[in-house]
């Protein structure tokens, strides 16, 4: 029973991180119909920025996280302006290739500054809470709590504010939104900024439990893609639910099936599900 | 020629096409009109096999094509154009048209590897068919032009030619005259008449009423997925239900 509960906690932790990353990915997809392959690179740069702020500038964990979020938000906006905006009317294959270009570039830049070493990031929440034999890492608790806060905040933002309402309007109907005078450019930039913030926060939350290195985004982004396909591309609740599915599948699969193959589980799941339901689990229809 | 019986298509809980029955005669120009969102394009998608209907039947010259896949329907002689036709922009007009005849050919990869007689014969036939279609739409002079260098009206004609190269019996034209000027519209109308004169049956969706009233033999009016009227242009024009639908939808649009 304790091991089971332990895996539940691990699954929640993992699922929260995946959910946050997938959330950013799904927002951008929902509004701009771009599968942003560079999202994992934003996540990775987010971790390095926090690392940089903490180690080289000596600021506190929370300050580093905030700084990283700002930097990645700006980076997201730059990508939108410089790359995706000019490509909005191009054949669909082009924005995917461009996103891959951004990904390669960001990785190379980080590699140039920090090398390919694995780095450890410290956290003020390094302790472990022993709950009747179930070990809850403080960082894990922080991750779950932060995710709940972020998701609630994002929901409030999307539902209660004018800007949020325009984002939702545009996600539902791009041309329609354009007709009623929504500034599509602003919404696009805003979406990329939010997506960047979520990536940076997720990276900073997860980095102390993992390691910081240039290729750290690869697995995460691919799992995020699996998640948003499962949850329906563009769906916000889908990203959270999908994140949890993958998080739990990995935690339990890693423990009960095989730790070496736990990374394969997510992809195998995707292959199986898409083989049976090409439109995903919750999506109304594939485009 | 084309007989549709109680055709219904549900998307989620909404009926995009609701219990539509109609009979389009051979060798005629049949028009489908209606306000935006009336289900006109869906209707075409159902006939051409792109969507599967929820219920109802579609008969082409007596053959039941209701559940057939799109490519089979095309082989039976249903050609079609779209509101926007994506073509290979940096290839010539002729190169874009040759593939139109592909459905009447058999050659596969093996023929390519050994450059078989059959492949040579079929490629010659496809090329001839493309030229013939090009000639029909009056674009022979532009055969070597890149699509990217063609005007909007020329693109429309190329799209027609591509549909014609499939050797169809009936062509479904989705807003063929959208985005071209009045003179060009007239030219395209002439082209449709020419198609009928050459033994084809034409079905078109169009918003340009002047053109429809001038060329259509029969008009079907759709509104909210339902057929609200059908008849000659004269009959439809004076049908109070149609007038109401159009005025009503104008009110909606204004609101």
């Amino acid at each position, binding site marked *: 029973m304790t091991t089971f509960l332990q895996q539940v906690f691990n699954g929640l932790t993992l699922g929260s991180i995946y959910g946050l990353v997938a959330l950013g990915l799904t927002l951008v997809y929902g509004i701009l*119909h771009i*599968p942003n*392959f560079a999202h994992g690179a934003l996540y990775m740069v987010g971790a390095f920025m926090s690392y940089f702020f903490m180690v080289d500038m000596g600021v506190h964990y929370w300050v580093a996280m905030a700084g990283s979020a700002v930097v990645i938000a700006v980076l997201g906006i730059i990508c939108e302006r410089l790359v995706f905006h*000019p490509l909005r009317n*191009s*054949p669909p*294959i*082009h*924005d*995917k*290739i*461009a996103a*891959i*270009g*951004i990904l390669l*570039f960001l990785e*190379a830049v980080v*590699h*140039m500054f920090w090398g390919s070493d694995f780095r450890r990031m410290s956290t003020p929440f390094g302790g472990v809470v022993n709950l009747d034999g179930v070990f809850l890492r403080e960082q894990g608790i922080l991750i779950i709590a932060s995710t709940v806060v972020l998701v609630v905040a994002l929901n409030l933002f999307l539902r209660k504010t004018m800007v949020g309402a325009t984002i939702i309007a545009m996600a539902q109907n791009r041309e329609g939104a354009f007709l009623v005078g929504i500034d599509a450019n602003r919404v696009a930039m805003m979406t990329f900024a939010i997506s960047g913030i979520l990536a940076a926060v997720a990276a900073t939350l997860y980095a102390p439990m993992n390691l910081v290195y240039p290729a750290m985004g*690869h697995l995460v982004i691919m799992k995020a*893609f699996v998640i948003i396909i499962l949850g329906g*591309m563009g769906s916000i609740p889908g990203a959270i639910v999908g994140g949890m599915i993958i998080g739990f599948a990995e935690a339990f699969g890693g423990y009960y099936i095989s730790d070496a*193959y736990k990374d*394969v589980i997510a*992809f195998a799941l*995707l*292959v199986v599900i*898409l083989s049976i339901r*090409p439109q*995903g689990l919750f999506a109304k229809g*594939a*485009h | 020629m084309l007989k549709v019986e109680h055709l219904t298509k549900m998307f989620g809980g909404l009926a995009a096409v609701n219990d539509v029955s109609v009979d389009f005669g051979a060798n005629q120009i049949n028009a489908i009109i209606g306000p935006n969102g009336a289900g006109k394009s869906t209707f075409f998608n159902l006939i051409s096999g*792109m969507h599967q209907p929820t219920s109802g039947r579609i008969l082409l010259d007596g053959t039941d094509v209701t559940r057939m*896949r799109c*490519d089979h329907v*095309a*082989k039976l002689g249903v050609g079609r154009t*779209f509101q926007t*036709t*994506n073509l*290979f922009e*940096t290839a*010539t007009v002729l190169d874009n048209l*040759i*593939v139109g005849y*592909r*459905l009447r050919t058999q050659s596969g*990869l093996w023929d*390519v*590897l050994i*450059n078989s007689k059959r*492949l040579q014969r079929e490629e010659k036939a496809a090329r001839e068919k493309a030229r013939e279609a090009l000639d029909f739409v009056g674009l*022979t*002079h532009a055969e*070597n*032009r*890149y699509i990217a*260098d063609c005007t909007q009206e020329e693109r429309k004609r190329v799209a027609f030619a591509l*549909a014609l190269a499939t050797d169809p019996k009936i062509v479904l034209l989705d807003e063929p005259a959208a985005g071209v000027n009045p003179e060009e519209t007239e*030219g395209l109308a002439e082209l449709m008449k020419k198609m009928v004169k050459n033994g084809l049956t034409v079905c078109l969706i169009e918003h340009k009423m002047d053109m429809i009233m001038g060329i259509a033999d029969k008009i079907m009016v759709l509104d909210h997925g339902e057929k609200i009227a059908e008849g000659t242009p004269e009959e439809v024009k004076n049908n109070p239900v149609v007038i109401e639908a159009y005025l009503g939808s104008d009110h909606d649009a204004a609101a």
Partner: protein
Amino acid sequence: MMFKLGALLMHPASKYVLLALALVFPALASNEYQVYVMATAFIWAIAVYGFNVITGFCGQLNLAHGGFFAIGAYTVALLTSDAGWNFWPAFVAALLLTAVLGLLVGAVSLRLKEHYFAIFTLCVGFIIYLLLDKWEELTHGALGVRNIAAPDGFGLVNFRETMPLYYLVLFFLVFIIWFTSRIQKSLVGRTFVAIRNGDELAESLGINLMKTKIVAFVISTTYAGLAGALYAGMIRFVGPEDGNVLHTFNMIMYMLVGGIGTLFGPLVGTVGIVWITQSLQFLEEYRMIIFGPLLVVLVIFFPLGVCGSFLTWMHRKAQALGLGPKKVQTESKVKTSSQEASNNA
């Protein structure tokens, strides 16, 4: 001037000149290493030709392409080193296996459209990579496979030496280019392009989408398998990193630089970039700082690549100079006069 030069390049004879150059290249090269680099470039070019069939002609961005390359390489590697086969039977097995796997993966993945297909294949590629890395009983995991047999020679020809190997690779490259050009010009190739133009349009032209896409996919994976098999026979060592998705990204770049969907684009792009990378050795690790933005700039400003831009430019120039068939000119006169008539009316 430029146009005449271009016309010379377009001349049917120039491809024989190109072939002659490739044949004498080992004599012109200043050392054996250069021949080796060229042979590696040719191997990648073969794989990129495959990529061009599914992505360039048929419009489906297959991000598992590098994975099939790795499967081809590992098939030869494991069959020759662990199972003790000779190279050529293993080579044939690699082609068959990549074709069959292409058929299976294609049958599932090609039902998905655009983004879904790209993401799905990205995952397939990653599964392949993870399997190579984790399935130690079969693949030796991170250690990789050593002692791979070189292609068996005949008579005095020994494919352990660089020169004969170079000609062997060149032979396959020429065959692949020849076969691809056949496909491109044929109705089969036109069917691929029709699908790239749009699924719906292609279907309405009576094209069986699934069947056609699968054919293109199997061709592309078999090319990748062929390249991988040659790679294993040449490098004689493979590791999981050969299945890294970065190789697929590299191939995208080769294809895009050369000209997506063109016949000589994969060759021009691959050989060009490989040599540029070689001459900028100091950049090796950081080359993506240049090539990443280059990809972005290419898709935004020069989506046609070197060959595509060249062909388009030549075509327009020829049209402007009125160099088309005679019939064209007379017809266009008729057209202008009839246009004038209608304008006057």
